[in-house]
């Protein structure tokens, strides 16, 4: 194909509009609730990363003498647990496993679920039917039950917990991905791209991904809090993390006997789960409204 444009040489410089994501970031930064939520998450992540340096005490060192001290005890600002371990240090170290258990399954499910959903949505027809009906089977089980059943079948442990949670989150993400992709696929610009003779892979890469990954991502961030709570639930039931590892759900479990002795100390892991999950939810909401413009 002869291109007369090549005679022109290099294209003239053009005025560029800020891209879509620049706009999203700008709107997100104007949202105070989302920014507070983001700040809390950043702090939690930093605490988790730098736990050995931040934590005042060894989270594993127990002492029979100073068990279940109240909040405000000198040297133990958040008290001690049923084995006399420093609550503050355990909560800081607990952020590591809890965030890992909350974020990783959603991350894995985001990739696998998007792949399944976009494939089903773009190809349509029989491929869609086979993939989505298989996905529908998983919706027959409540997510908690499914996570418990899978963890129980695979055996306790962090890896198996992550695996079962990932499997739990694939169906809802795949369903969202499928419906968004089906909608985008019918829009004229995809039709025009098909009429250009581009391959399905090229059309998905250039025209579909950019328009579907955003909504799927927003939905996935909303699942992080669910994952966090489910992971804590698995640990609580003894199917996730094993003692003496510090993990918020597990800590909630082992401290529950102390609820009449030191109710405030016993509630602390729950408070952390609450703060973290609500922060992820609020950030997800902020992201949704920052992305929800006509362009």
């Amino acid at each position: 194909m002869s291109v007369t444009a090549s005679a022109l040489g290099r294209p003239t410089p053009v005025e560029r509009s800020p891209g879509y994501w620049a706009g999203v970031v700008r709107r997100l930064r104007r949202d105070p609730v989302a920014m507070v939520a983001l700040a809390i998450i950043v702090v939690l992540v930093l605490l988790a990363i730098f736990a050995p340096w931040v934590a005042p005490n060894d989270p594993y060192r127990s002492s029979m003498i100073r068990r279940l001290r109240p909040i405000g005890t000198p040297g133990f600002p958040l008290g001690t647990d049923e084995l006399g371990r420093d609550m503050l240090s355990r909560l800081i170290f607990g952020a590591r496993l809890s965030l890992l258990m909350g974020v990783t399954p959603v991350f894995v499910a985001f990739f696998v679920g998007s792949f399944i959903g976009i494939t089903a949505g773009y190809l349509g027809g029989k491929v869609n039917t086979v993939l989505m009906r298989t996905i529908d089977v998983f919706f027959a089980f409540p997510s908690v039950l499914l996570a418990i059943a899978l963890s129980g079948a695979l055996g306790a442990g962090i890896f198996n917990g992550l695996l079962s949670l990932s499997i739990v989150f694939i169906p809802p993400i795949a369903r969202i991905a499928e419906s968004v992709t089906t909608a985008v696929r019918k829009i004229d610009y995809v039709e025009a791209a098909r009429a250009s003779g581009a391959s399905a892979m090229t059309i998905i890469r250039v025209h579909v991904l950019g328009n579907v990954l955003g909504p799927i991502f927003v939905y996935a961030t909303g699942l992080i809090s669910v994952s966090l709570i489910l992971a804590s639930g698995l640990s609580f039931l003894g199917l996730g993390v094993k003692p003496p590892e510090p993990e918020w759900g597990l800590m909630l479990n082992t401290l529950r006997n102390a609820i009449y002795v030191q109710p405030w100390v016993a509630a602390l892991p729950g408070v952390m789960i609450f703060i973290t999950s609500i922060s992820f939810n609020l950030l997800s909401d902020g992201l949704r409204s920052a992305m929800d413009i006509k362009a």
Partner: protein
Amino acid sequence: MTPAPLLEIAGLTRHFKLKGGLFGRSAGVVRAVDGISFEVDEGETLGIVGESGCGKSTTARLIVDLIAADSGTIRLGGRTLGVDLELRELRRQVQMVFQDSYASLNPRLTVEEAIAFGPTVNGVSVREATALAHELLVKVGLEPKRFAGRYPHELSGGQRQRVNIARALAFRPKVVILDEAVSALDKSVEAQVLNLLSDLKRELGLTYIFISHDLNVVRYMADRVMVMYLGEVAEIGPVESIYARPTHPYTQALLSAMPSMDPDQLTREAPLAGDPPNPINPPPGCRFHTRCRYATELCGKTTPSLFALAAPRHLAACHRAIPGSGHPDAPRRLETAA
């Protein structure tokens, strides 16, 4: 002898199956496009008109295989699709501009990326494609410096449709199908875009298939007009001939419904009553007979085929025009033989 037409469509058919009930039992068939044939000469503009749902847009999508045809052949430049013409080549040479200028542009791509996409898919380097995009922006009257880096939502409807035209032209097509391409624009912008289309056609030697429900616009743009009714061709012919002597009662009704600029030529009675019949179960015989004032028993039984009228290249599918058809208004067979 006249040269072979650029685009030849023969017996193009698409029926949509309606699925209903359990296990997708077929609940009926929509005869969206039912065996239509026409040809388009190089350098001409063929207008396609008809009511909503008569199959105009489906026809356009069938030509570039965005919807798979049930049957029919498509020939471009003497080559037949699926025999000695690849779909990819056909799609490069026959491009479409859609009605919805907003939906036809990916909101995540800048104007230059949108225009350059086609050429890059067909093996042109990104840099050359971008240069080509800038060149085409100039052609459609948009300054590259100002517009190339913009996103679709920053442009007006008319500007977006200019970008869509540039996007289609980036393939260096022979035929451009304009599917209601100016219908959504307001009148002053519509006129500008129509003039642009005329200029581009002259400059680049394009052939247009111009789909519209606006008969005034079709009259201005088209060389020949094809009138469709319920998935069939009712009448086809040169624009002067059709507008001066419409033969099919449906064409007559359409033209009399056309808003006139002359206050003395008021439309006093509704030319047609009712909606078109359901294309799921089109009426037997002539599909128009349920709304036709001239309909006789014959029209409900026998389907009229396209018949060449006295004017050159003017064909109509109406028993009243076919000599010896048995319709009381039809000319006698003897007269034509004499």
